[in-house]
């Protein structure tokens, strides 16, 4: 299994002897002990600290097919270095575009994506109803909202309903985790602890989807639910919708309820709230563990990791656009 590497410390990454060498640099500019990363076992790199690198390194990473994701000081996703596309398939690309261009086809697919997302959200809520959280009302609300997507005439309406579903869902968080208030969803910057975790987790989920798409023939800029805008890989956003409840939200619940993350792990500043570096590390460790968790897949009849579920979802989308098999969204059954 290839591993993701997370670079939190500032330093210099370089190519040496056909592998990667990382030299940490401390505040006084002194170099620490070098670590060599086995290039053959790197899945991708996440860069949180400031990184020195040169084009020779990026050429090498490109050759090896390693994606690099960058985050700024506040741990916002800023962008990715993607190697040259290596799985090119004009046929898939044309089919994908055709599906997007046909209003009916696009609407149907977008609705399917929301179906997956809603199902997974309800799954989370129902689990906590079983544990005594007062969530019956929001569940009924979300179900009613989901029903109303059947008659949505266009994507904008659909997106609006999706927004309402998610808002109702997020408001339940307060009842699921103890000690933290949700108030309202706030972004750029998130204003309280829960919002910070949601943003941080969603960002990790987004990069995960992006990497999985990169390893398939799909074009990450042509999306169905989100409007394919400029400057972003919106197909990754579509996919992330389906997986956020399973991957991100469950990580948040378990980390807060087990008190692995506490109020002292956050830093509330004049504008917004951020995770302390040690807390970000903790979150990422749990996130990695979750991705490697395996389940027995019902149709494949073998064990697959949560991470691989995302890849399977991409394959389903390809089959859908090529009209081989209708897309059925991933629905958590446990």
């Amino acid at each position, binding site marked *: 299994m290839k591993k*993701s*590497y997370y670079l939190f*410390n500032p330093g210099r990454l370089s190519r040496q002897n056909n592998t990667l060498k990382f030299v940490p640099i401390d505040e006084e500019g002194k170099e620490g002990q070098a670590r060599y990363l086995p290039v*053959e076992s790197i899945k991708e790199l996440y860069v949180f600290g400031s990184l020195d690198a040169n084009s020779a390194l990026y050429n090498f990473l490109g050759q090896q097919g390693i994606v690099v994701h960058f985050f700024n000081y506040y741990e916002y996703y800023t962008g990715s270095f993607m190697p040259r596309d290596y799985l090119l398939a004009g046929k898939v690309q044309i089919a994908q575009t055709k599906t997007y261009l046909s209003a009916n086809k696009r609407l149907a697919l977008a609705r399917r994506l929301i179906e997956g997302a809603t199902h997974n959200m309800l799954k989370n809520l129902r689990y906590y109803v079983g544990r005594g959280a007062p969530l019956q009302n929001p569940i009924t609300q979300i179900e009613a909202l989901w029903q109303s997507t059947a008659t949505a005439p266009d994507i904008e309406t659909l997106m609006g309903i999706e927004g309402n579903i998610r808002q109702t869902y997020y408001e339940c968080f307060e009842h699921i985790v103890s000690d933290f208030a949700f108030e309202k969803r706030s972004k750029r910057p998130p204003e309280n602890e829960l919002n910070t975790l949601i943003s941080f987790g969603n960002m990790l989920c987004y990069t995960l989807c992006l990497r999985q798409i990169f390893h398939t023939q799909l074009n990450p800029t042509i999306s169905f639910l989100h409007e394919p805008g400029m400057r972003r890989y919106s197909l990754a956003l579509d996919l992330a919708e389906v997986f956020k409840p399973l991957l991100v939200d469950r990580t948040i619940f378990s980390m807060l309820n087990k008190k692995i993350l506490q109020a002292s792990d956050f830093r509330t500043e004049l504008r917004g709230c951020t995770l302390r570096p040690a807390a970000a590390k903790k979150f990422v460790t749990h996130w990695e563990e979750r991705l490697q968790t395996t389940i027995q897949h019902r149709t494949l009849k073998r064990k697959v990791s949560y991470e691989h579920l995302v890849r399977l979802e991409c394959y389903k989308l390809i089959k859908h656009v090529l009209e081989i098999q209708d897309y059925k969204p991933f629905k958590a059954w446990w």
Partner: protein
Amino acid sequence: MYVILVYDVEQKRTAKMLKLCRRYLHWIQNSVFEGEITEAKLQELIHRARRLIDPETDSLIIFTSRHERWLDKQIIGKEKSSTDNFL
């Protein structure tokens, strides 16, 4: 699978061996490496190592384990290099 690799090669070949192993595994001590690796990648590494060493004098020993969890690791004294994925 999870492997521990140790080598004992003639001095003039150690540098080459080190460079090769660094591409696949984590260096933990002089001439000792460990890490998660796939079957195919391990074969690739062995193949490359074979071309490097002199079978008369050098040796390469690989301990394999199905998973890291079946391995108890104790470090006495200084840990020269860690193998985790947070830097």
